[in-house]
């Protein structure tokens, strides 16, 4: 097995990988390769046939495949090399990337690696939802794939657990395909998906959303026959006596996305327990020099437009790393109060301006996001509302920033 040298290997040909590759090409990097395990480029966008993609970036609503195609066309036009039907098996801390396809095994010695593997869905098993184990329990993304890519209908009488965006989108999709969506249940006291999806996918179709409710038992020995739903209190504990039985043949789970970081772990990259993605600095470089991450593998995004933006912004840094062999030291920590669920980056150099992306832990009205260092405010952002479903991106100017004490992010 021979080893092939590449300046940059991009792992994953979804929206993040495509945007990163195009931007790196623009910065003059030519000896790069996108590796995609599926037979086509585009990633999860291929199955997202609803519209609403690209509003921020292109100022018009595109479907997922249309959004992806704009990038795929550019990749092809620029002649950026890509291998589809190829799965990366491992990445070493020395940036040796082993991939497999029907042509065989290949090992690349990469100058830099860009991780853009996206995310996967949280499952029934991970939540340990009690009850029997019939057919008819699916995650939302799997249902989306069955219907939109495989022309296969999964059921007729539907309950949805979790108010994630894909779940709501599938509520509409199932309805349009003739299924009856009974209700969406969300364990938290607020929705986890975007307000626009609550309006366009649930309200417009008279599908009720019940907050502070969860599925407490699954029934059916062969195909699903129904679910028991219970109300929960403020500590998310089930309130006895609130159980209600809903007959259904399909339960769709939209209960969270988890960055897919098995390969990152094989490379020995430090992970953030909050995002389940890598710890990165303002260059989107992970704890392993020369390995970068962007998109949903780094943090689960709300909009694909933000994924593209994030992936593009690492291109310059990769080019510098390839040229100089290193990037400035980043040992200024970004710390958060209890109202902030996480930030990207988690550490910075303190020597230049940077973009902070973050989410709040629970909904706020008329709040201020305060970013300070040494008790000096670096930036104050007033928001009429802040929702956990929406990412917040804030540019932090160089002005008062110092390469010393931790930067604190809080919501008040």
């Amino acid at each position, binding site marked *: 097995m021979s080893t092939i040298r590449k300046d940059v290997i991009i792992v994953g040909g979804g929206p993040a990988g495509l945007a990163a590759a195009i931007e790196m090409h623009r910065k003059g990097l030519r000896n790069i390769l996108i590796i995609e395990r599926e037979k086509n480029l585009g990633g999860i966008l291929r199955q997202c046939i609803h519209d609403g993609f690209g509003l921020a970036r292109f100022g018009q609503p595109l479907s997922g495949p249309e959004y992806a195609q704009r990038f795929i066309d550019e990749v092809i036009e620029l002649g950026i090399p890509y291998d589809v039907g190829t799965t990366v098996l491992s990445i070493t801390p020395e940036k040796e990337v082993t991939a497999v396809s029907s042509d065989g095994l290949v090992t690349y010695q990469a100058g830099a690696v860009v991780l853009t593997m996206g995310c996967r869905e949280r499952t029934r098993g991970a939540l340990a939802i009690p009850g029997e184990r019939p057919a008819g329990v699916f995650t939302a993304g799997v249902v989306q794939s069955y219907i939109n890519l495989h022309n*296969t209908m999964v059921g007729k009488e539907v309950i949805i657990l979790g108010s994630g965006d894909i779940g709501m989108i599938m509520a509409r999709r199932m309805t349009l395909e003739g299924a009856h969506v009974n209700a969406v249940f969300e364990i938290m006291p607020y929705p986890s998906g975007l307000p626009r999806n609550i309006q366009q996918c649930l309200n417009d179709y008279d599908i009720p959303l019940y907050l502070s409710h969860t599925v407490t038992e699954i029934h059916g020995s062969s195909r699903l026959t129904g679910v028991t739903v219970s109300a929960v209190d403020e500590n998310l504990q089930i309130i006895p006596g609130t159980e209600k039985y809903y007959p259904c043949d399909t339960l769709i789970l939209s209960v969270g996305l988890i960055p897919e970081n098995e390969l990152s772990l094989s490379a020995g990259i430090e992970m953030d327990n909050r995002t389940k993605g890598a710890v990165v600095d303002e260059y989107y470089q992970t704890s392993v020099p020369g390995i970068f991450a962007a998109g949903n593998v780094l943090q689960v995004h709300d909009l694909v437009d933000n994924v593209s933006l994030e992936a593009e912004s690492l291109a310059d840094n990769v080019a510098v790393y390839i040229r100089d062999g290193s990037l400035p030291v980043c040992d200024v920590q970004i710390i958060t109060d209890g109202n902030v669920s996480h930030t990207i980056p988690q550490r910075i150099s303190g020597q230049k301006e940077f973009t902070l992306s973050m989410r709040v832990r629970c909904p706020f009205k008329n709040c201020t996001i305060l970013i300070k260092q040494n008790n000096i405010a670096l930036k104050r952002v007033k928001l009429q509302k802040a929702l956990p479903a929406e990412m917040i991106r804030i540019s932090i100017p160089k002005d008062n920033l110092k390469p010393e004490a931790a930067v604190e992010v809080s919501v008040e």
Partner: protein
Amino acid sequence: MDELYDVMIIGGGVVGSAIARELSRYELKIGVLEKNLDVCFETSGRNSGVIHGGFAYDPGTYKARFCVEGNLEFDQVAAELGVPFKRTGKVLVGNTPADMESLKRTLESGQINGSCGLEIIDDAQLHNLVPSVIGKFALWSPNSGIVDPFLYTIALAENAACNGVTYLFDHEVTGISRARDRYTIITSKGDYRTRWVVNSAGLGCGKISEMLGLRGYKIVGSKGDYIILDKNVGPLLPMPVYPVPSNTYMGIHVTPTVDGNVIVGPNAEYINEDAFSYYGVSQKEIRSLAESANTLWPCIHKKDYIRNYCGILPKWVDENGKIQDYKIEARSEAPNSVNLVGIESPALTSALPIARYVVSLFAEKESFIRNTTFNPVRKPIIRFAEQNDENKEQLIKENPDYGEIICRCEKVTKAEMLQAIHNPLNVDTVTSIKYRTRAMMGRCQGGYCQTRLAEMIEQEKSKAVEDIVYARNGSKLFVGKVRR
């Protein structure tokens, strides 16, 4: 019902399949009636996957005898049948003087049973073997091991099928009659005539006994729940860790699987026959399993849960509810029958010794002609993920489908999936393919591969999507095409 079978075996679990395989060494027309759509959909596939040492059973019992015998031969059996097996050893961990007394008693009965290499080890030895365990001393059984219970049952059945045994799935036995030295077995899919009949119906052993006219067996189920943990905790558990056993129950333990996951459980809840098909797990049970096992091995965190399941052991009890030994009998009230009752743990370990014993009961009445074409070897599906780079390259060169990863978590290739779909038993539920390949068994639980798996079954077996079944009869996955 024109064909006359020499032997009809009721129940295609690990014991029924072992009997089928051992009988296929002879010139006999053998059938297996299985009510499910594949083997190991009940107790044989719903357990801890432990190959027991044979120390936990009363001396002189079938359980002790067959378990020790099965344990000692398992390396050879696993190699012959191409089944993943690891002789990991096992510890029973104690803390108190009472625990020590109990372990010493277990050690003594183990020695009488012929269980090899047992010894009491101290704190240091214990923590040298399993650093993460909580306990002061242990009974160490170096001969205990772990096996893939699905693949072992499948391997026995496939080997039997390749040696001429006919498996009849989706055949539930509803009645048995006997006239002119022939049995007629009435099933949900027609009647079958046979000279001999074997009751290895597991949870159904009581019902089948009644049908044979062998009345009075009281069977209770011991329902046990399990949690499966992610492979990332696997390295913390090199062998099964058990508490000190009681007379009737092994206790909640933690067990590594041959593939590197960890399973936690089981508890034991006694249930009656009418609940034998309920495989639900409650929230309370999951919580108490984790709490209990964490006192033994404090590495169980909810973030590592990937699935839960339960299994039901058929226990034969006397009128006082006391659990009995296996009953394996050839009684004159039901001539030419072998009736197996209460075949519970350690049946995975004991299956082949039990099968040979059943064959010996036949041989007392009838002399068999050797099947000269019998081949004891079953070639497993070669797993891409378990090969070194050189072998991987070779596999892909010989079959490019070995380069196409279908299951991302377990790195199962298209080549493996195709071999599994075209299996010797001709079964094609989604779970059948899952058990044979490990696709859908990883941390994403099929999030990536299940759509591909369903499509492959549809295409390879020329099935309509609405006929694709998840596991049990009627567990249809789809209602049809979105658009024609």
